[in-house]
């Protein structure tokens, strides 16, 4: 099969898988949460831009730092998409020239399209801020777009270059590939310096900078360009290529698993020693099943981070919308409590799937009761956090009492009917 045909076949298959994951991701709960989050972000951002702060507030250097950090985060997004698989080492052996010239050319094209979309989104977010901070900022915006997108292209070409085995004279080796120094220089230092120059220079030097940067880009592109001679003289470094593809796939799966349960994802466990002290206090002299649930939760890399993010974002929303009416704050608090309960449910199903759990001489009723006890503790914790956030951001006794009453009713309802119902459904 021709290299580019194979790539596009894999690309389409991956898109189909991603669509499946997106369906998992955009479940009713997540969309609801996303709408609230997006609404709160737009409200907060608009409030920041429309508030009449003194001129010195906008002239603060901290805004440059914020913008640069934001754009550097954006630069990290958009990996090189090769879709190589471990078996390629065997089945594509001997096709290196075709893979290098055709397969990877298609890979780089699609990677830069995806990466550019991400970069434009990230730049788009800071454009209102740039326009607010600087009087004449269109030149800066254009310079940022040109720089970020071309820089990302060079980074992707550099990543592709690491997948080759070259003769010594063809290799420019400054650092060990993927070393800390390399990452620090190419992913932080170089882009930070250029972005800082774009943000601080006046209009004319910015144009000179853009022209100089464009020349540099052309030189870099010439170096990375693959002609027929290069395609024949390079060989694939399959170890690096497969490792890179697996890392990229893990990044994507990790992104999806931040918000949804992704089936068949290899599980990674984190010991989290810093949690052990709380964990051991929490489970001391507690029944075996409760100990098991808490320990699994404390070291899980899917459910716990998901719940933690939910709670943090929820508290930020409650804090930001301090002047919103009581019903809205209470509504948000109910959604947070509900989502935390909903996201905890896979812990029960996953624990029951383990043969060890089923072999333990513990009645099923006890296994369920202990899981409901874990929910209860989590609910009390979330409820307390909501009340503290309301008390700290906009103290109103009426709002606190209302919140306490409504959340108590919701928690009782969840524990008495929703969770037992869901457990029954899981067991079926």
């Amino acid at each position, binding site marked *: 099969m021709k290299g580019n045909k194979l790539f596009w076949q894999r690309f389409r298959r991956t898109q189909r898988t991603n669509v499946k994951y997106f369906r998992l991701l955009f479940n009713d709960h997540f969309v609801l949460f996303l709408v609230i989050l997006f609404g709160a972000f737009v409200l907060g951002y608009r409030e920041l831009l429309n508030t009449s702060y003194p001129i010195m507030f906008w002239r603060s250097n901290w805004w440059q730092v914020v913008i640069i950090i934001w754009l550097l985060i954006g630069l990290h997004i958009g990996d090189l998409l090769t879709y190589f698989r471990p078996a390629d080492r065997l089945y594509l052996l001997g096709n290196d020239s075709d893979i290098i010239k055709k397969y990877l050319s298609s890979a780089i094209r699609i990677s830069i399209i995806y990466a550019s979309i991400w970069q434009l989104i990230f730049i788009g977010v800071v454009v209102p801020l740039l326009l607010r901070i600087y009087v004449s900022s269109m030149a800066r915006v254009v310079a940022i777009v040109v720089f970020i997108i071309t820089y990302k292209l060079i980074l992707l070409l550099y990543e592709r270059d690491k997948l080759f085995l070259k003769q010594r004279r063809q290799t420019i080796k400054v650092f060990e590939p993927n070393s800390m120094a390399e990452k620090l220089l190419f992913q932080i230092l170089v882009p930070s310096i250029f972005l800082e120059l774009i943000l601080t220079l006046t209009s004319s030097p910015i144009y000179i900078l853009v022209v100089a940067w464009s020349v540099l880009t052309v030189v870099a592109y010439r170096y990375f360009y693959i002609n027929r001679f290069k395609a024949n003289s390079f060989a694939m470094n399959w170890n690096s290529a497969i490792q890179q593809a697996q890392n990229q796939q893990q990044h994507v799966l990790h992104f999806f698993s931040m918000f949804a349960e992704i089936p068949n994802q290899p599980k990674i466990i984190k010991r989290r020693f810093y949690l052990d002290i709380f964990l051991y206090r929490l489970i001391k002299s507690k029944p075996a099943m409760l100990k098991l649930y808490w320990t699994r939760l404390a070291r899980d890399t899917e459910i716990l981070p998901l719940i933690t993010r939910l709670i943090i974002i929820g508290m930020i929303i409650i804090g930001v919308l301090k002047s919103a009416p009581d019903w809205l704050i209470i509504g948000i608090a109910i959604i947070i409590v509900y989502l935390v309960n909903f996201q905890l449910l896979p812990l029960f199903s996953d624990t029951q799937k383990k043969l060890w759990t089923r072999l333990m001489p*513990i009645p099923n009723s006890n296994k369920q009761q202990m899981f409901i006890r874990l929910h209860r503790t989590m609910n009390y914790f979330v409820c307390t956090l909501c009340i503290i956030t309301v008390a700290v951001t906009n103290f109103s006794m009426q709002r606190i009492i209302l919140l306490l009453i409504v959340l108590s009713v919701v928690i009782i309802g969840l524990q008495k009917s929703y969770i037992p119902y869901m457990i029954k459904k899981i067991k079926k």
Partner: protein
Amino acid sequence: MGLKINNLSGGYAGNNVLKNITFDVPDGKIVALIGLNGAGKSTTVNHVIGELQPQMGSICLNGTNIVSEPTMFKSQIAYIPEQPILYDELTLGEHLHLMLAAHDIDNETSWTRVASLLTLFRLENKLNWLPIHFSKGMRQKVMLVSAFMLNAPLLIVDEPFLGLDTLAQRDVIQLIQEQARLGNSILITTHLLASAASFVDQFVVLYEGKVRFVGSPSELAEENQLSVNNLDELFDLMQRELANEG
């Protein structure tokens, strides 16, 4: 009394693998369940540990029926599966404490035995390790420790020697024999007939979901005109018979 399997029929949904099998594992005896792949060994074990529901017949352990009193039944068994199963999130020490707590066994009084088992399998310094750091053999040893520490009335061992070095295999045989001396019933499944013949009291031969033979190793050898040392050839005989029937 031990384990009594009476007229057991069962298997997976829509696939009745076992057909009226009956055999006992008396107290203090070691019984090995043998047969070709697909004969029904794993299905039998899955029924005994409560993973499958019998369609007919009964499984009783010291008078406790697995269907009517599953928790009571499970509290009397220790199981060592063919493939080690561990919680990825729990350390070795936490696994052992969990198992003791689930079986309502006091930690303090039983820990001396646990410690000696850990030393025997060279795991005494690994109590804080997560399963991800264990090799396959070490994982299997964790399963062995957590089963042998219970001194359960019925010990079920699925392929006891898989993934173990020679030293560990010898230790496992000694521990199994020790459990039998304590009066516990032992049910093992194995493909290594000649090795098992040296320490088992009885073989139960399964053939296409039915019990074909129950007897001592020497009786099994005599029945098939083999010597005890050549018992492994029994599989060849069964395989040939199956091919002829086919």
